[in-house]
């Protein structure tokens, strides 16, 4: 075990990790940031998505040591400074884009990265962009609407087409 240091949600942090410690384990058990979830063991569900240096990354797929010194953002760092929900989070609540909430942190992180890259995606681009995130509860209808709404588009009108 060696100590691995990085910036998480704007704070410099340090916690022990083995060579095989995944970033998601480091966050969850090392730092107690349990908002990032583990939904699979084959890097395919997206429940674990965080941002590493601004890019959406499946945190079950990188070793903590490999992102030493990086700037990591997790779901716990997505609210506004005053504690209110950020734009993407608020859109998910407004459009009922979550049910059990287990996929939600990954969905929010993926959405934020998607919109940073493509601020006004089409429905097809949203669906394609969320392809790496599985939700078993919502049938995706309201998630797609939430993403469209977070990009400032009229989600109801698009869904009704």
């Amino acid at each position, binding site marked *: 075990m060696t100590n691995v240091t990085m910036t998480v949600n704007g704070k410099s942090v340090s916690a022990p990790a083995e060579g095989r410690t995944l970033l998601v384990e480091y966050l969850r058990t090392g730092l107690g940031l349990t908002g990032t*979830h583990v939904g699979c*063991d084959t890097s395919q569900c997206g429940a674990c998505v965080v941002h590493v240096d601004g890019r959406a990354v499946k945190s079950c797929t990188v070793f903590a040591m490999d992102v030493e010194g990086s700037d990591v953002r997790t779901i*716990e760092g997505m609210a506004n400074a005053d504690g209110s929900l950020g734009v993407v989070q608020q859109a998910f609540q*407004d459009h009922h884009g979550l049910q059990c909430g*287990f996929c939600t942190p990954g969905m929010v992180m993926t959405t934020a990265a998607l919109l940073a890259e493509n601020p006004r995606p089409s429905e097809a681009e949203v669906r394609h962009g969320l*392809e790496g995130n599985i939700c078993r509860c919502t049938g*995706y209808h309201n998630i797609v609407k939430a993403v469209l709404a977070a990009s400032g588009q009229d989600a109801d009108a698009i869904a009704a087409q």
Partner: protein
Amino acid sequence: MPKDTGIGASTKRREDVRFLTGRGVYTDDLTMFGQAHAVMVRSTVAHGRIVSIDTAAVEAMPGVLAVFTGEDFKDVGGNPAGWLINSRDGTPMREPKRPVLAHGKVRHVGDAYAAVIAESYAQAKDAAQVLSDATVIEELPAIIDMKAAAADASNRVHDEIPDNICFDWGWIEDNRAAVDEAMKSAPHVVTLELTNNRLVPNAMEPRASIGEYFPGTGDYKLTTTSQNPHLTRLLVCAFVMGIPENKLQVVAPDVGGGFGSKIYHYGEEALVLAAAKRLGRPVRWTAERTESFLSDAHGRDHVTKIELGCTKQGDILAIRTETYANVGAYLSNFSTATPTFLHGTLMAGPYKVPHVYVNVKTVFTNTAPVDAYRGAGRPEATYSIERVVDKMCRELNLDPFEVRRRNLLTPDQFPYTTPVGLVYDTGNYQATLDKAVELADVAGFEARRAESARRGKLRGMGLSTWIEACGIAPSHLVGVLGARVGLYDAATVRVNATGTISVMTGAHSHGQGHETVFPQIVAEKLGIDASSVEIVHGDTAKIPFGMGSYGSRSLAVAGSAMDRAIDKIIAKGKKIAAHMLEAAEGDITFADGKFSVAGTDKAKTFGEIAFSAYVPHNYPLETLEPGLEETAFYDPANFTYPAGAYICEVEVDEGTGKVDVVSFTCADDFGNVMNPMIVEGQVHGGVGQGIGQAVLESTSYDENGQLLTGSYMDYAMPRADDVPFYTVDHSCATPCTHNPLGVKGCGEAGAIGSPPAVVNAVIDALHRGGHTHVSHIDMPVSPNRVWQAMNA
């Protein structure tokens, strides 16, 4: 104007805030002081005799604290089936013991026969691998195919069960001869053989359990991913471990989806409790997704032959089915009810069909246990009926919409006693069908089809009119049918001295939004602000009792209990108000949060009454206890019967066989709707799963019993780009006649009604494209199957 609070308002969910900020608390998020980690050791063969397990090989490994095998649990009880089903000849079902850890034999890949407990998860995992290598299992031939298993007496999943049959059930046996007669004399008989594909539920949160033991008091605590903590407590205490029920607290905190798979008690729950006691430390276990695939109860897996007798005009005269239902290697808790009373009793569908007979043979195989999965039995019934009705339309060249209209029960026929033992209380199936036709723009289909054709795609439209029985369930009725439990529910409404309210409900929310919806009802009934109402669920130490959430029962059963408890609160409030206002109790009315003396302006607010109940200075203490807290148990008088009409449009690529679901329309009757936003979300989710079943999801065991689809690389989960936006409507409401809220339940509808609509649409597309030889394709309608069918 839609309401913005109370019953019928699309109130935004309060639970969302914690989920959206990473502050949900799921079982695996908890850390216990001094915790140890359990890793299960699972069979890598489907069927085998355990020759030796060399526990000494791991006991000295770093961090290893304990090793458990089946031997440690051979003297405790088994995990039982909740329903006792009799075969047609009256003999009781065969019920082999389901041990905490496999003992003597392993019976499916993933069957846990040992567990290693260690200081760290990594150490436990390392040791589990070593123990697996240090175990000798003599492999036996795997029993995978149901019909072969039933035919071959030489190879047995359970040595004491000669033909691998759990039971051979007839429903209703006394009607069989009449059904045979009606079938024989029917002018036309349609026959269809189909498979209802095995599914893996795949709640996104894998199962997890933490056991604790408190030597000072002898108390146990189990924190677990459960849809029904009280049921788990009952099973662990009374059947498996022999712990007194008042010595075990079961907590199900935030749970990341269930869909049936978390109803059941699993061996890992008993294991962590036993390990916690032996070690004197909390012991935790969390499944990896691979373990979920191998060891969660799967769903469906029926092979059915259905026959439908009818007139040449399409009037249904009789339905007869023979089904082989896979129960897997052991009986999971609801596994015997699902293919029988949740399936056979729905085999008349929403139709006036005079003669119905259902035969179900349940078969043990060397596969994971199969149990209720979203819809549970009712999707299987609906799929069989709606597919055979569709086939009838093709054989007789009839319009599927017209045929439905001819056969659907009409509103004047309710209450309607079906030939399979249910009494539908109310409905208007024509209304939902008309609504679906309108919303799906059936009239515009031809133009859409032509447009698809220009892009080289075959377009088809499929219909399904479905019904389900939910609000599970009237205890008396299910008792007659073999249930070993009652299926009422309970609620305590606690009005605190300051007027805030805690509702302890037996329902469990794992995505359904109870924390938001239940306060809407309380607020409306008591004329107070919903924000002062808190829902408490998922903890046997806090809630009075509860049978949990499944079978679309939360609102219809637990919600009704809550409604009853609120009525008791109001009744007591009237007594207090009568005293304070110096009026007769009969003159007190309650409305808009105020107790008033009728015909006067004398009144007390709800808050004043609550305060007086806890500070009883001016209070009828001689005749009334202080305090304001009421509990109600509610046992439903009947099932509820949601119903609806679904229309699906698909495009099929003739070159590849790929099916795209391009539109999906639902017109449902859920009775009264408490929160439309949440109800619509439930339908979206169910339809998403139904499209998954119809188009993508396949659970495949090879002939050796290896699960070929054991990860998200091999098991195709529906993803965002596999589904369209759905059109969902619930305006054609006929309120349930026998529960106080008039609600029917909406959680399973989408998963029940959608698969046949999708497959009917695919067959329609192929026929319109000239492939008229294709009468059926089994689910999932994968490119491979569709292409093969077209080119057969």
